[in-house]
């Protein structure tokens, strides 16, 4: 995904603890997710789900499968 792109979450492949936290923040299968921007120096990503904006690192983002 590039900044500005939207996609739908297909599946989330993380351990239980992180999955719980992602659920609490609104990451659910079937939800729309928008990549707003990436930080410099391959830093974290800023994404939007519904009206909530969330920061997460690349390593975590890679565990979330999406489909455009």
């Amino acid at each position, binding site marked *: 995904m590039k900044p500005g792109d939207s996609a739908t979450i297909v599946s989330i492949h*993380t351990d*239980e*603890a*992180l*999955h*719980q*936290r*992602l*659920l609490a*923040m609104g990451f*659910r*299968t*079937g939800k729309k997710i928008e990549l*707003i*921007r*990436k*930080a*410099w*120096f*391959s*830093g*974290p990503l*800023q994404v*939007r789900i519904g*009206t*909530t*904006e*969330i*920061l*997460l*690192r690349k*390593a*975590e983002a890679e565990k979330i499968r999406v489909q455009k």
Partner: protein
Amino acid sequence: MKKIALLGMPNTGKSTLFNRITGSSSRVGNWPGITVELLSGKILLGSEMVEIVDLPGIYDMHGFSEDEQVVRHFLHDNVPDLALVVLNATQIERQLSLLLQLRQFNLNMVVLLNMADEARKLGISIDTAKMSAALDMPIFLLSAKYGTGYTEALQSITQALRKPSTATENVRQLLEQDENIEREMSRVLHDTVQIPARLPDNLTTRLDRIMLHPWLGLPIFFGIMYLLFQAIFLFGQPLQGGVNELLGWLRETAVAPMLSSLPHAIQGFLLDGIYNGIATVAAFVPLIVLFFLFMAIVEDTGYLSRAAFLMDALMARMGLDGRSFVMLLMGFGCNVPALMGTRVMRSRSLRLLSMLVIPFSLCSARLQVFVFITAALFTPKAAPLVLFSLYLFSFAAAILTALLFKRNYPNTEPFVLELPPYRFPTLRQMVMRGWLEVFQFLHRASKFIIAGVALVWLLTNLSPSATPASPDTIAGMLGSWLHPIFSPLGITPELTLALIFGFVAKEIVIGSLAVIYGLSGQALSGTLALHLDWVQAYSFMLFTLIYTPCLSTIATLRNESNSNKFMWLSLIWSLALAWLLSFAFYQAARALGY
């Protein structure tokens, strides 16, 4: 297999409790009637296996938020054999409503009043026996955090599960009323309200486009920080001068005449010891008020999370994350709450590394030492720059420490953080925050300051025959004994003494200098400018910046890490680094001919 549903409001410690009960056996799974996945675990109760499902936290059984609908749909299609209801004991009067709503379902129920430890601290007492009788269901106090109260609760759950559940039809009937409302709601909304798929550009989005810009973001961040310190200096210094004059005038016209009938030694102790010390520190109150006011603004606007976003890439390379950086920034107010703030990190090694780094944050107590000395020895034009350079050194020491120690504290914790929208804090909010912080600072500092300056006066005035603060006093001897260690740094015996007192708290460094020289305010600045050149002063400030912040910080480090070894590591490392840096700076500056 029998099923237990775990229900409760958000933030009741429900998930902690769930983890405690199920241990590591939990898994994520799908359930009939709902599209989201829920966490569940199997445990052995009595002689049979039962399944516990952790439902989302809700405020109202009949509400229409997403979570509330999930809970209702789950209960409708998967009527549990027992509802385990978790309430926060400290908010029992508010949370009881949910329990009473649930009671209408006639399910088997067991109630757990969590956070019993906090409730006890707040003086809330709950008679569980009476409440059990009133509601006709078993109720237990427990603490998921400390793991107390479980055995009885689990026994009662086992017993309650033996009762056959006859509620199924009743539950479904009751829930269908709400489901009819849901359908009605969605029908009306569908026909009449349109919500755009893409939210319009609001102010937050537009601001973020600039503030979080890939190239501009960081310079803007440092610019904001620099302006902040400039502003503190600009507004704070005249105020500080005013308070100083006021207190000096008060001494001459009121305090000194009032004490004139007392014996000479006691008069000296009260005036040159206690009064001078307190007056010098009191002059910093306006500065600290301003500092906290500005920090409160930065924090309440939501900019701190943006700073975490900007800095995470860099922090990740140091084995830390964006949150460590936010704590580091909080440390600029006071290290103690910043150290306590690392509790949000779940990984112990990330936490320890953050705690090792935070004491290098230039806290407000150190700031007052630097403001005083820079004002005394540097021109008004150079002073803010000198101060800014000390902030850079503060970051550099933190970065160096993190890089050196990151291999010892490998971090695997994920970094996921919610980004709040920008908010402009109300004036009341800012003033309240500023006032609260100042009050806490004064509260913490006043004990240290009074005891500290009294001790300094005694050390500098004993034995009675010696001239105050001369080499013959206890203080003078201590200073000259340590002199060989500090002379390569350009630090004089008087300053060495101030450093020793600074070990207790930086708040008393200037106070103790006032006592050592027997002068306060402007007069003290003048004397310092006579006795020291700028290289010596800067070396002294570097050492003050980097060695142990204060006794409270050390105590907090010990408590939060729960390890004496870690406390000693932090203490010795910061002393060694302080000495090495001051040494390098002083010798280099002298070698360059300054």
